[in-house]
């Protein structure tokens, strides 16, 4: 049994203009010690998926309409509020995107790191402070014993993200959800933070869900990758398969829109044309068809189901796997078409 299993998750928001299906049928699973990356454009449902797992969808507008989320066999969606609070921070912890705003400015860093220990483990202040120093040290903050008494504004962005990671790790959670943890950081710090996360994952055996739109991060960290588009899961595969043999035209688009150092510039940087659809008025059939260069009449009428094409490589495209039909404009080997 996998540590986390999500089956056919559907999360919706009721707005004045209609129902937004922010997540429409996500299915995936996660084992201890593994990293799952969820990628996609803004508004594709990545963060809502994570928030659904944490049961942090704000009602009454938002609700999890369907599906099943189990943590080590226990149904998260059936938990009482008290059970959910006991789970948050203790079993599943979250690192937020912007370290500049995710720390409370009026409390010392150490106090905030210790807070979940006091809430979940019933630790007293002194033990929690001692543990906070240990954790700050673990995430690589020098002079942790002194810095633990600092306020967030005395920390740099990279140090704050380290402190956020220390906060998330405080109760040694089974699952760490990182919602674009490096987006707000500059590139050199990004690499350090990712390295730190992998290092800590090795030490603690936690599973990581990495939400990102940075495919470089995915390549570096992920064991499995879930690609989302307009709330739908369109490809779900082991990371190597996804990079070397991507099957969905949208995934090709994502990969082709990355600048690459191993291909001499032939003018082959191919951004995906058009804009992601509005989630209120999702195109009929395959949501990607208006932007898909290979779309057929079938794509406008019929919504493709997620199919397993072997070795756990799942894709939602009518034509994926048909050898001569689809050719990418650029291949990993480097020969453009």
């Amino acid at each position, binding site marked *: 049994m996998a540590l986390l299993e999500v089956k056919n998750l559907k999360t919706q928001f009721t707005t004045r203009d209609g129902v937004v299906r922010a997540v429409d049928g996500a299915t995936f699973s996660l084992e201890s010690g593994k990293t799952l990356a969820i990628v996609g454009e803004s508004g594709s449902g990545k963060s809502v998926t994570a928030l659904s797992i944490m049961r942090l969808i704000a009602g009454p507008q938002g609700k999890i309409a369907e599906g099943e989320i189990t943590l080590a066999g226990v149904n998260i969606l059936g938990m009482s509020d008290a059970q959910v609070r006991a789970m948050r921070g203790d079993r599943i912890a979250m690192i*937020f995107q912007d370290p500049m705003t995710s720390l409370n400015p009026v409390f010392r860093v150490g106090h905030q790191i210790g807070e979940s220990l006091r809430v979940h483990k019933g630790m007293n202040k002194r033990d929690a402070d001692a543990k906070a120093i240990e954790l700050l040290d673990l995430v690589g903050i020098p002079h942790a014993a002194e810095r633990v008494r600092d306020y967030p504004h005395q920390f740099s962005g990279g140090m704050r993200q380290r402190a956020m990671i220390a906060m998330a790790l405080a109760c040694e959670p089974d699952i760490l959800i990182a919602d674009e943890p490096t987006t707000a950081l500059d590139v050199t710090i990004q690499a350090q933070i990712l390295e730190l996360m992998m290092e800590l994952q090795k030490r603690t055996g936690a599973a990581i869900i990495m939400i990102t739109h940075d495919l470089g991060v995915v390549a570096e960290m992920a064991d499995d990758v879930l690609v989302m588009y307009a709330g739908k899961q369109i490809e779900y595969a082991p990371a190597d398969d996804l990079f070397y043999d991507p099957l969905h035209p949208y995934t090709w688009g994502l990969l082709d829109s990355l600048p690459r150092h191993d291909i001499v510039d032939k003018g082959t940087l191919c951004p995906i044309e058009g804009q992601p659809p509005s989630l209120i008025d999702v195109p009929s059939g395959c949501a990607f068809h208006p932007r898909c260069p290979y779309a057929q009449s079938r794509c406008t009428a019929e919504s493709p189901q997620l199919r397993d094409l072997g070795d756990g490589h799942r894709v939602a495209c009518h034509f994926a796997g048909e050898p001569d039909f689809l050719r990418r404009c650029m291949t990993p080997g480097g020969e453009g078409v």
Partner: protein
Amino acid sequence: MHPPTEPSEGTAPIQVESTQPGGAAARPSRTLWGDAIIRLRKNKLAIAGLIWLVIVVTAVLSADLWVPKYFANPISTEFASLESPSAAHPFGTDRIGRDAFSRVVYGGRVSLAVGVLAVSISVVIGLLLGTLAAYYGGFWDAMIMRTADIFFAFPYTLFAIVLLAILGPSFWNVFIAIGILGWPSIARVLRSSILSVKENEYVDAAHAMGASNWRIMTRHILPNAIAPIIVYGTMSVGGAILTEAALSFLGMGVQAPTPSWGVMLSEAKSLMVAAPWLTVYPGFAILTTVLAFVLIGDGLRDALDVKMKD
């Protein structure tokens, strides 16, 4: 899963990207209030206000110890009427032969008490209703804020006079009236402050950490939203003192023979030319005390901003 282990060989502690100039903490860390006091000390005007207020409060609270002994009882009429200021009567005497200095000092008791108590009532009601409105939103928000609007729709002083006409003029009723009239502004300031604080990511982070609603409200939101209330409350004390003076001047406040600055002004209004000292000294007391509260409030506003990095 295993707990994070001590760094051993092979798992060297990860290096941080940069250290602060000067190695460890660039300066010793202090508490929020410790920092605030240090910043407040740099604000000369606020310190002047604070010193003046300490003098006034000390003088007023200890009045029983020294005023009757060295000057006079504030309600005894044993002296000649309308004496101009002298060594025996530093502020002169009034029409019926009472020592004006002792009346100013004892009047300060009433004025300060009304100011502080009335604002406390406003703050308690305002905190409660403002928090409810901001946190629950919807129906409660609409109810509370429309009630506040109704309060705003009446001319303030007129409303106070009507309330006192119903309750009857007395010391307690004055501060009840001022307190009840003050809550809508406090509630409104707090509500908007909470609404903006609520959107912060650290509130989401607290939810994700498993904190309860009560904990999030009291530990994460209120401490960040409360600074404007401290500032506004401090300044309101000055306003409440002015209102008390105005009500007493109009005869709707504290009743003779109890002295208050407003009562004194009221009694002296027909003698403004004949005995100017009877209006100047209570007026000066009101002016400086209100000013002191405003200056302190102003200083607190700057001092409580944790984001000021000096």
